[in-house]
């Protein structure tokens, strides 16, 4: 266990660095030291001299901090559920985006929003629930289509995922184009992968993501045993059907909450678990938590890049992850073909 403390420490340090940069960097640079003092000033019983302009308060607490936290949650969610889907389907290419779950969640979210635009926090809480239904329905449909006998071939799963995902995306676009006003605005985040702003989405996504990710972290040993196939897993004493159902629900819930407020961001759930696997091994008891921390860090950095490449214009973060992720996907595909190692 001692050998494992190091990656957790390294990853946490990297995450802290990414969080700091994400709050500090933007149209106005706010030095990390000042951000720290501004945060400390929020603590009760601590009176610090206010040596920053009032506008900084607005920038940090109303804009950057909620944005940073939403990106952190999204990266953690997509990467954690990506690791779980890969283990669940024993498929190196499974990713919430590539198996269509993200698009299914997007359709669910937009259906709910076009039915009734969420103008309060309670309304916002219903969006991930609708996205969750869309995500779960998609994953069930995709695995049903892709199944051939008792096997679930790697490429068929991705093909079915892409097809079902495209169908869901098309329906989503249709729904949005025939709607008006605020719903149309949803188009921006959903197609490009840009986050909603303010604290409300953070609060609405948080409980879903925490529940989903906790379940996935606890399932580490079960995911390990599942790597030997359903039959051996059951003979080793794992209640396979129950465990798989639980995993699908938890991963879909996590994905759905992330998609609801950050749109469809591809490949992050593919890249991060792979790097973690290469660097620190395939044991899911560590792979899942390290993917969660690493996913948050990676998406924060991608988001930072998206904000500064064309400044003052912002790119949707999904563009950055796709630019990095698509070549990565092809690399894994070649590797997986060359030998069964992944």
């Amino acid at each position, binding site marked *: 266990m001692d050998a494992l403390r190091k990656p957790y420490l390294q990853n946490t340090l990297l995450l802290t660095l990414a969080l700091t940069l994400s709050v500090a960097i933007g149209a106005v640079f706010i030095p990390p030291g000042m951000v720290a003092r501004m945060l400390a000033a929020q603590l009760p019983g601590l009176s610090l001299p206010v040596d920053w302009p009032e506008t900084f308060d607005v920038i940090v607490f109303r804009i950057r901090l909620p944005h940073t936290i939403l990106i952190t949650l999204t990266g953690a969610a997509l990467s954690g559920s990506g690791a779980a889907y890969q283990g669940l389907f*024993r498929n190196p290419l499974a990713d919430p985006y590539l198996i269509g779950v993200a698009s299914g969640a997007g359709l669910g979210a937009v259906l709910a929003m076009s039915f009734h635009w969420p103008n309060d926090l309670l309304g916002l809480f219903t969006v991930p629930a609708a996205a969750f239904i869309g995500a779960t329905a998609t994953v069930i449909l995709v695995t049903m289509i892709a199944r051939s006998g008792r096997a679930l071939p790697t490429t068929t799963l991705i093909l079915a995922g892409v097809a079902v995902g495209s169908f869901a995306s098309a329906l989503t676009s249709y729904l949005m184009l025939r709607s008006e006003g605020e719903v149309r605005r949803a188009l921006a985040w959903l197609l490009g992968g840009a986050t909603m702003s303010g604290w409300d989405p953070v609060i609405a996504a948080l409980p879903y993501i925490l529940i989903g990710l906790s379940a996935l972290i606890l399932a580490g*040993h*079960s995911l*390990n*045993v599942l790597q030997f196939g359903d*039959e051996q897993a059951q*003979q080793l*004493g794992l209640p396979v059907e129950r465990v798989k159902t639980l995993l699908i629900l938890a991963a879909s819930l996590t994905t759905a909450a992330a998609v609801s407020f950050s749109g469809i961001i591809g490949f992050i759930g593919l890249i991060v678990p792979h790097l973690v696997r290469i660097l620190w091994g395939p044991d899911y008891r560590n792979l899942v938590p390290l993917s969660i921390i690493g996913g948050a860090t990676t998406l924060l950095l991608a988001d930072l890049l998206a904000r500064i490449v064309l400044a003052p214009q912002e790119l949707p973060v999904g563009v950055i992850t796709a630019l990095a992720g698509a070549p990565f996907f092809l690399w894994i595909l070649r590797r997986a073909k060359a030998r069964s190692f992944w």
Partner: protein
Amino acid sequence: MLEIQSLSASYGSKLALSDFSASVNAGEILALVGPNGAGKTTLIRAVSGVLPVRAGRVRVAGKDLSQLPAVQKARFLAVVPQARNLPPAFTVWQTVLMGRTPYLGWLGQAGEADRERTQWALERTHTLTLAGRRVDELSGGEQQRVLLARALAQDAPILLMDEPTVHLDLQHQSNLLNLIRELVNEHDLAVLMALHDLNLVALYADRVALLVEGRLRAIGTPNEVLTPARLSEIYRIPLHVISHPDYGTPLILPDGMGVREKQAN
């Protein structure tokens, strides 16, 4: 120890096993033999509970196995599968430790007792030196021993094995079966083993169950079951059965149908 009562199982509408009954006692190896497609693997799968049964029951120490949850089942009954398609992920140690799954808490954290049992299983199967190696990079014989170690770590009184020697050469076949025989004698295990090679069956099994087209054709000691008339009929080739020079167990010699004479001409 293990009682199989009128077991029937099917794939879709095709009945692959019908009305099979047998029992295996502690300290005994019951070998399953029969031509390809006779239902040996089906029987192993049905008994282990991964293939739903159509009719009949499997009882272990008096309990109906189908009524037990997966965890309980795995404490009574461990399976040594054929070594193929092992995940390209785990070390030998991690793989064998997974045999402890039915004893772990819901977090899957292994304790001292789990590590001791794993260590013992590795020592017993001569795989301790491989502990740090990746399981998918081992030879077939080594993989088969690792899977045996995993089943031993599971600490179940009954072991089911599906053709454990199928990809092994003569030396490894013999070593593995010697090891299994030793373990059965030492720990009073009950073993149900599908095995192709009739000569190995005759040498290592206490009793033999002969399956033909999903039905039990004969059951008894190797000398009772492996008779020339019965085997010739079932395997559809002429053959001789002679007596092993040291043990008196049957040795099955397929008749070359005069190939040698044809060559001589």
